[in-house]
Every structure is written in structure tokens, then in C-alpha cells.
């Protein structure tokens, strides 16, 4: 039973982490242009380095 004292906070902490990441990505505008994101991966970089 003492395991619960660790496991439950860890589980909830990980959940909160996921929630925070989701809210951050939402605020960051990552859901603004879903089709564009899918297409951008096809654009070639043209940097002559």
C-alpha cells in the first residue's frame, strides 16, 4: 500500500504534465493550421550552406 503514496502522485503529475503541454500547444497556435503543417513537411529547404 505504501507504493500508492508514490504511484498516485506520479500518475496525477504525469497527467497534469500532459494537460499543461496540451494547453501550451493550443496557446502556441499549433492547431491553427493543421492542413498547412501537413504540407510544410514537403517543402524543400533551399539554404545553400
Amino acid at each position, binding site marked *: 500500500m505504501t507504493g500508492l503514496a508514490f504511484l498516485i502522485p506520479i500518475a*496525477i503529475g504525469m497527467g497534469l504534465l500532459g494537460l499543461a503541454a496540451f494547453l501550451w500547444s493550443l496557446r502556441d497556435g499549433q492547431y491553427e493550421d493543421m492542413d498547412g503543417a501537413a504540407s510544410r513537411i514537403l517543402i524543400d529547404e533551399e539554404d545553400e550552406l
Partner: protein
Amino acid sequence: MNAPAPILADSPALISTRFTVPGMRCAGCIGKIERELPKVEGIIAARANFSAKRVAIQHDPALDETALTSALLAIGFEAQPVADNPLGVETHERKRLIRALGVAGFGMMNVMLLSVSIWSGADGPTRDLFHWLSALIAMPVIAYSGRPFFASAWMALSHRRTNMDVPISIGVILATALSLYETITGGGHAYFESAVMLLFFLLAGRVLDAVMRDRTRAGIGALLGRMGKSASVIGPDGTTRRVAAAELEPGMLVLVAAGEALAADGAVEDGASAIDNAMLTGESAPEPVAPGAIVHAGAINLSAPLRVRLTAVADDTAIAEIARLMDEAGQSRSHYVRIADRASRLYAPVVHSLAALAFVGWMIAGAGWHQSLTIAIAVLIITCPCAMGLAVPAAQVVASGALLRRGLLVKDGSALERLAECDIALLDKTGTLTLGTPRADIAALGAEARSVALGLAQASRHPLSQGLAAALLHEGVVPAVIDDLREVSGAGLSGRWNGVEVALERPDDAAQSLATRLRIGETAQTIAFADPLRTDAAATLAALRAEGITASILSGDRAAPVEAAARELGLAATAEVSPQAKLAALEALKAQGRRPLMVGDGLNDGPALAAAHASIAPGTASDASQQAADAVFIGEKLMPVALAVRVAKATMRIVRQNFGFSIIYNVLAVPLALLGLVTPLIAAIAMSVSSLVVVANSLRLARATQGTRQ
């Protein structure tokens, strides 16, 4: 991401302007815009939003919108500047729902984790601890994620109405309160996971609904904004300055250049030209105007500059009058009750009385008030319209996504519901059944004549000349060199070719207005123009008939061309109908209990589009008509109209199946709940399974649009 656009820190010297760029279609376009635009002097960065077909440009304040538009045009994209975030309110609403969904998802997973341990047999102090933990997680989550429902339910109740959100709110609040009581008193049954899961599934439905609306709004926003919105006012000293349409005053003298749209009503003072009144009348033939003629806002001046003394501006113009009619006609539509609310009007009282009966029944049977209340709440939760909340939006989002891929933008779910109910269709002719642009019949012309005709025609902005030039260029004709080229408004073009007098002029037969005469020296040939029917018009009408919808033509055009089209398609037709009469015709049909579908493009169709039970406009329609219509179709085919009706009907079939499933599920689950046999475990499983079945059933609609692929 492979190609991040350079986003610079906001510097106070830069300003940002946003454009809609409907022609952005592929990854290459994004790359081109974001790479090429910053090469223009004064443009610092460009960022494309592919989903919304928008480009945000950061630039030097010295560059104005016109310069930026031409910079975009130079790399091959037509663009329109957009006002500062007119859709911000809706995006905000959607984001709020998504945040609530995220929080509910977090709460659901964690509370479920704890609940599974309880169901697996945790008891005694462990169970109490887990209940307390669940309560600590669930309470804030419910308070936050439940707000959209609580607010809507409160709004309905304070207006003495009831909607879908009332039973949801009551169920969630009662379940939370009872679970809290159970937790405090150390009881065995807490329903936190059911309450949170209910919110999660319902929010998923709401988010789907909001995403669908936003997506279509962005698509339609990209089509809008082609009207003239300012005018060149001639001052007393003869200088001109641009004045926005809203700031024009009656009595002002404005200069209307060839190709410009009028921004207000007025009378011609000086100049002779032809105007394209298609916006108001739907008539594609240009109308000659001379001093004294009355011209209306929205008309396009075709051949020569005009000086116009304004008589009516802003809200007093004929266009504004039509807009007012549209507004009033649209009011009736807001009384339409969506199927989900109709269902809940039947459903909510039944659920509430069942729960109340369960409580009273168990009290009479001698159970304590605590057990009776637990059972009543189990009834509320198990019947809570979780599957119902998803039944409608899930089906509608799948259907609208499928239609979008076939070139039809449906504005919202209520439009799909109304489309499915239509039983009679009224179609405008010009621009709807036909393409709306005159096409020349050049088969009779010889090679020499073609070359001369192109040399003449390409010099003019007259729609007939443009139609002729387009047809000739399409055939690969090389234009002849014409000297001494003159355009006389209302008469035609004339010039000299190898010393011979050549002309494109009005034929003597005035009734034949959709024709021009090509004269080379002494020989003359008449070139007829036709506004051809869309290639699949007949097939579309047959498809509509197959859906049980009879179609007829209701057009503002002259009787002769309308009758010709009607004969060809075998339809009944009414011609020369004014916008008010179109509106009256629709009101008459509605009064007979019919549900008319209006398909039209001109501004003269606007009030009718707004008044019809459902309406569709082509993507070439006037802005106002696109605003008034429930759906907009893009491209040269008419088939999306029939497809829309078919898919709308399929959607409603699926929605009804979804409702049917929810009802069967309730018929099975409610007796169990009434008998007090439903544990939180059963409630949770039943709820998820019913939601998944509804979503899976809705996904079948993605295939519904594939039947008519040609």
C-alpha cells in the same frame, strides 16, 4: 517542421496586414509565398495559414495594401486584404471549448484510474482515500469544463425554456453533489467518473460542431470581398480623391473609371458607356448608359469613364434595400429548431419524470431517501443524452467534410438539416444553371476573320469582347495588328487592318443583344454568343428528381433566354421576376407548407436565398448572396447541388439511426437503473460504448459522397 517561416520579433516600425489567398493549394504555394515575398523590398516576413487560405505579411508601413496585393499577384496569387480579424469571436469560442475538452480529458483519465481500482475491489480506507482523490480532481474539472453547459442551461431556464443542456447540467450537478456526499460519509458509490466522462463526450460533440463552422467560414471568407468599396470624388477644382463608400454624400460628383464598380446610386452627368448590372438584375448583357441614365451601386462600368452625380449613398442605395430585405427574410430562419433541440424537448421531460418517479417509487417502497436518491441519479446519468450529444454533430462533421472535398461548403449543421427537408427547388438561370459568362460561337469564322476579331476584341473590357477573345485564344488564334483602334461606347470597336476598315459592332437587330457583328471591309459576319448551360445541368436536375425534388426556374432575366433554357431542360419557368417578387414567390410556397430550396447567384436572388428553407449559391455569386446562402459550391459543375441534397438526406438518416440507437440503449439501461442495479461501473461502460457506436456509425457517411463520382 521542415520549413519554418522566419518570424521576427515585433518591431514597432513594422505593421502586419492579412490577405486571403484562395489560390493557395499545395505545399509549393506555401513555400513560394513565404520565400518569394520577403525578397520584395519593404516586406520583412510572410506567413501562410493553409487551412484558412490566409497570408500574414509583416512589412514596412510605407507599403500599402495595393502594393502588397500586386506583390502577391506578381508571384501568381490573387489576394484580397482582410479586415482585422473579423472571425476572432468564433475562434475564441472554439479555443475555449477545446481547452475545456483538454481539462475534461485529463480529469476523466485520472478519475477513471482511481475508479478502476475501486471496481477491482479496493475497499475500506483505500476506497475512501480514492474517493477523496477523485473528488479533488473531479470538482475543479467539472466546474471548469461544465461551464459551457451550465451557462447555456441557465440561459434557457431564465428564458423559461428548456434545451439539451438542462438535463445535462442537472444530471452532472446532482451526480457530483451525491458523490461528494457519499465521499464525506464514506459510502460505497461515487459517480465522479461518470460525471466527468459525460462532460468529456459532450464537449467532444461541441468541439466537432465548432470546428465544422470555423472551417467553412474560413472557406467562404476566402471567396468574399470583390466589391468596389470606394469612389473617386471630383472636387470643385477638378482634382479627384478616393473616398470610402461609407463617407460618400448625395450630390457628390464621382469619376467612375472603366472596369470600376459603382459605390453608390446616381445619375450619369457626362460620358457614354455600358454598365454590367449583373449584380442587381442577374442579366449578363451589358446595358448602355448615356447622360441622364440612373445607375446603381454594384454595377460595373465597362467601356468608358463616366461622371456620376450621386443621388443615394450607403444605406439608401438599391443594394442596401435588398440587403435589408435579406436581413428580414433571414429572421424567419432563426426560428428553425434544430433536430437535437427538438429531440430534447421530448426527451428532457421523460428523463426528468422517470428520475422523479424512481425517487418517489423507491421512497414508497420503503428505501431510505439516500438510496432512492442514488437510484434517481443513476437514472439521470444513464439516460443523460451522451450519445445524443454526439449523434448530430458527429454525423454532420463527417458529411460536411466529405462535401467540402467535392467542392461544396456547408455553413453549419442546421443548413444540412434544412437541406434534407427540401421538397421543391427554384433555380436562377444566369450564373446558376448557366456559367454566367458569355461564350462566343466562332465555328463560322475563317482564319483571317478570327485573327482580326481577336486583334479587335482583346482591346476591350466589354464582356462580349472578353468572351470572344477568350474563345479565340483558346483556339490558339494569333491576333492581327490593328491600327487606329477606337472604342465607341454602345456602338463597338473599329480600326484599320492592312488598310482595310474593320470593326466589331452592334448588330442592327437590337433584340439580338447577345451577338456582335464582325465587319472586314464590305463583308460582315454575325458572331452569336451564348451563355451555355452548365454541362451537367440536366444530370443534376435528374438527380434532384430522383430525390423527389421538382425544380423550376425563377429568373430576373428577359423571357426569351429563360424560356429557351427551360425548354432545353424541360422545366417550368418564370422570367422577369423582381427581387421582391422572388421573395413573394418563396413566401407563397412556404405558406402552402412546401420547403423550397433556392439556388441563385445574383444580388437580386439575395432576399430569396435568405427566405428559402435552404439555399445554395455558386462561388461566383455576389458577396451578399454567398452570405445569405446556406452553402456555396465551387467550380463549373452544378452537380454539388444535387449531391448536397443527397448527402444531407443520408446525414439525417444516420442521425436518426444514432438517435434510434440511443433510444434502444436507454430502453435496455433504464429498467436496470430503475431497479437500482446500475453500479458506477455499468454506467461508465454503457456510456462509452454508446458514444463509440454513434461515432463509428457516423463515419459511414464519408463513403456516402462517393456514389455519384463521374
